[in-house]
């Protein structure tokens, strides 16, 4: 099966600090590929390089059979790369529904439409409401997004990404800062998202990672030291000494 996303020898340095070193990785159709690693391993930088928010120094990003290395963030989003952010990025003054409706209209094509009122456009609102219901925010549609709880904002961000009907979803620590109950709910939610598109999941919550992931890659100091099934990763001595072992000590 040809991978949806293929990274070939990606490099990124900030001055003398090499954050991504000759990194290669792929995400296959239908899978959840988790990326784990200690703080400062370069996970968020890598997500930035894949999504187009950061430019790579060298290497290629192949997405859906196409070299997208030189495309900008919006161009890659239009090509079908959806993403969420480690620090939630929503539009706080818009209602939850307006947030998702903007995503729906972005997916429909250009927005140089000046006259029709967007707030009363059922073709936008119905779709947006359906997606919000899918992520469990069906009864929070009219709430200003800034007023939502932290976990709800996480779900809203997921809804924004899903509205683009992405071919691949990049999730940067979706569970960060959420309580145990929320984490469980989000885990269940991500299981349903998996039916829509493959996921590249960066996450610190190991319970969630081992429950969700089909494959796991371990990133340490900008290098992938292991890739494999959850069982393989759990058994790997190298991973334990580099990463999982440290977790046990703390």
């Amino acid at each position, binding site marked *: 099966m040809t991978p949806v996303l293929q990274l070939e020898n990606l490099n990124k340095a900030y001055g003398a600090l090499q954050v991504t070193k000759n990194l290669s990785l792929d995400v296959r159709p239908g899978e959840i590929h988790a990326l784990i690693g200690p703080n400062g391993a370069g996970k968020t930088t890598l997500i930035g390089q894949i999504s187009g928010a950061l430019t790579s120094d060298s290497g290629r990003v192949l997405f859906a059979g196409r070299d997208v290395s030189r495309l*900008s963030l919006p161009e890659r*989003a239009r090509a079908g790369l959806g993403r969420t952010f480690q620090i939630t990025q*929503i*539009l706080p003054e*818009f209602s939850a529904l307006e947030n998702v409706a*903007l995503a729906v*209209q972005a997916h429909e094509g250009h*927005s140089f439409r000046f006259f029709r009122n*967007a707030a009363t456009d059922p073709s936008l*609102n119905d779709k947006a409401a359906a997606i919000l219901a899918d992520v469990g925010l069906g009864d929070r549609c009219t709430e200003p997004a800034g007023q939502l709880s932290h976990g709800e904002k996480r779900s809203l961000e997921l809804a924004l990404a899903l509205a683009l009907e992405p071919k691949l979803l990049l999730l940067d620590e979706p569970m960060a800062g959420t309580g145990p109950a929320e984490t469980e709910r989000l885990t269940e939610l991500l299981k349903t998202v998996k039916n829509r598109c493959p996921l590249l999941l960066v996450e610190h919550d190991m319970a969630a990672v081992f429950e969700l992931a089909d494959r796991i890659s371990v990133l340490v100091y900008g290098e992938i030291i292991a890739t494999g099934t959850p069982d393989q990763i759990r058994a790997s001595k190298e991973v334990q000494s580099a990463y999982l072992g440290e977790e046990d000590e703390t």
Partner: protein
Amino acid sequence: MIPASITPKTSPLKASTLVPLILFLGLALVPVYAQVFDDRFMMLFATRIAVLAIAVVSLDFILGFAGLVSFGHAAFIGIGAYAIGILSEHDIWEAWISFPVALAAGGLFALITGAISMKTRGVYFIMITLAFGQMAYFTATSLSAYGGDDGLTMWGRTEFFGTNLFANDISFFYLVVGCLAASYLLLRIFTGSRFGRVLAGAKQSELRVEALGISPYRYRLVAYCISGMVAALAGALMANQAEFVSPSAMSWHRSGELIVMCLLGGLGSLHGALLGTIAYLALEEVLSGTTEHWRLIFGPLLVLVVLYGKGGLIGLVTRRPGK
């Protein structure tokens, strides 16, 4: 199933409907008042307000609504005014020629300067729009064929198919108020459209909007051109009102005043800008009549409104208790 409340119905008595309705009704009744009390000053004063309000509403569209602090907006007014003045020097008085030229000139200046300015953000955007504004100002002062520093006196007003629509006090007033109402309505429709939603979204989080696959640049540039054209319309009317065009109309002081009027009224609603213009000019008129040191009162008063009347005057009017 989608609850009915999702698609909001606009009730006819909402403040965002009521406030502009009252303001426009009030403006429309000024000639009646002026006739009854034989008050020509009021008539001219209201005309001045309405002309300037067109420019302030256009500024609010990009500053308040789209979040782009343009500090060179007076340049567009000046360009519109000079278009009318220069054409009149060449004996072209017909509105069907001069007004489209004025609007096109404003739009073109916005397109060129906007395409460059929009590459920057924040303070840099403010500074670069200020720089372009000053460039326009100094260009006008060096137009020696058209009066240079001293400005350009027009020997009449624009004609409309040979009628004196522009020359009569009352008909000119209604023409200006009509232009104001049309500009306001058009921009307000734009703010509610898909286009407007992109602008408002990009103001809140550019990164988020880009991750949705939208590049805000083109949308902002188009908004800037629309705003520049509307401001040029204000300038074209201003030239007719004064029958005089001068570089001082595009100085940075004037750009600053326009921003203050926006802030005073409250940002982003468009009718806030209208209210701000009325309040600013009225206050200036009243205070400058009482004492020659009126700026000592005027300045702190503006600071107080911006500090404590969060959301400007429109915020004071529409604020509901407990919210």
